[in-house]
């Protein structure tokens, strides 16, 4: 503080300033007072931990991590429930965290008597993931809950920790809902899936390892759709030798919902 006043005095004594008009002298005092007040007060108000790690309060990082966990994480469940987690790890739900169905369980880990997990049996839970929605990726198992054993709880037939269907599905539509729904409103509604796709029996158990085959050439579609074909349907007919010979049929037509009338 003292040094500032000394500086001001020294500045005032300066021969240039002593000759300056009165107005300038007064303003110099005011300006110096305002600026020095700002410079003195500012450092006092800046938080101590500001600017240590960047242009922010270091304490903000501590604030950010001071939240309590609600979700304990899948590793915590294994410690006590190894039987269940083993079963889970072998089935389709192996990537599913326990807390998705049983709710956040950090409290349960702390004190298992006080904080019971939830054991949902409602038919509303599973359809959150498994209800048929046209936006869901192809191949993801989906049902229409209204027509799917509509009175029973899901867990009466499906063990959620190993959710393989209780019996091998007989209908392709059980898994391929999107395709079967498209086909059902198309001109191919009466064509059986197996007419085009030979399907190994094992596909129903290990769908990704054993895949159904697909038609390989134009002649396959030509069985019904060439002009000289001996069929009595109203199917649109083309000359296989001249009709867009550069392409296979399914490059332009979607066989499950063929556009051509």
């Amino acid at each position: 503080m003292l040094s500032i006043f000394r500086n001001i005095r020294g500045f005032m004594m300066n021969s240039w300033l002593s000759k300056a008009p009165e107005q300038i002298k007064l303003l110099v005092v005011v300006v110096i007072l305002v600026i020095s007040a700002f410079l003195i007060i500012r450092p006092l108000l800046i938080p101590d931990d500001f600017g240590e790690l960047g242009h922010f309060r270091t304490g903000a990082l501590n604030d950010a991590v001071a939240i309590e966990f609600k979700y304990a994480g899948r590793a915590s469940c294994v410690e006590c429930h190894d039987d269940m987690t083993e079963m889970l790890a072998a089935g389709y739900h192996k990537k599913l965290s326990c807390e998705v169905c049983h709710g956040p369980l950090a409290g349960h880990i702390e004190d298992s008597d006080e904080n019971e997990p939830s054991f949902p049996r409602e038919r509303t839970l599973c359809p959150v993931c498994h209800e048929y929605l046209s936006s869901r990726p192809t191949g993801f198992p989906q049902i229409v809950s209204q027509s799917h054993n509509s009175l029973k709880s899901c867990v009466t037939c499906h063990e959620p920790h190993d959710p393989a269907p209780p019996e091998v599905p007989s209908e392709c539509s059980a898994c391929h809902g999107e395709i079967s729904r498209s086909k059902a409103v198309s001109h191919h509604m009466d064509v059986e899936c197996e007419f085009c796709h030979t399907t190994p029996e094992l596909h129903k158990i290990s769908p990704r390892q054993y895949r159904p085959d697909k038609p390989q050439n134009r002649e396959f579609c030509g069985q019904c759709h060439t002009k000289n074909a001996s069929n009595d349907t109203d199917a649109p007919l083309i000359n296989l030798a001249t009709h867009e010979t550069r392409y296979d049929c399914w490059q332009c037509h979607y066989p499950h919902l063929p556009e051509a009338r």
Partner: protein
Amino acid sequence: MKNLITSKRRDVLKTMAGLAAGVLFPKFLTAEQESVKPMDWADESINYNPHEHTWGMGVDIDKCIGCGRCSNACKIENDVPKEPFFFRTWVERYQVKENGETIIDCPNGAIDGFEKHPESEDVLRSFFVPKLCNHCEKPPCVQVCPVGATFQSADGVVLVDAEYCLGCRYCIQACPYGARFLHPVTKTAEKCTFCYHRIVRGEEPACVEACPTEARIFGELDQKASPLHRFKRMNHIGVLKPALNTEPKVFYAHLDMEVK
């Protein structure tokens, strides 16, 4: 070579900005130089140095089933107000129709999942897109914050200091992704933190934990052995609004051009 040039240019710009800052506010120039100091955590059980990590997220749109478990878990884990106007993460449904029109919806941030859309006729293609803060490498929100209440931690995570935030909402205006909101009670800005309290203790963010299909991948960007690195190797990657040059660190696989 090209990288070298851009990174050099960036250094020059940074130095210039630093010099300008130094002339005006000398304290910050020195602060900048000391910034390699590791972090002393108030919770001593934490052994985490922000300088040793760079976090990012991968989102595989083809795997998302629109169950909304992520946005639901986020609300619970981070005490986000339950009202339908405040979300740190949410899931959008896109339905691109035969006539070129696109219908997007996001009922209550999808915390209860989706139901059949009334206008789902004549749909050409359809999919779900999870959204969250992109933790941009060049975050416009941090750029505009007048006081340093929102900032980028050394690990690339963009955070908000609720104690220091004025509630001016400039950051909300500056975010191109709608990822920020004003907390109705504290009146300060809020957003996704990548569950910072979890990642410093070695856990995954709650949304990643809750995703049933591994559509969300969380991990290190700078380490070769990281699930996120593998994700970026195996997929064609897009980011949201690349033209704005914010350099998002949330990477989308199978991103559709209709996604805004």
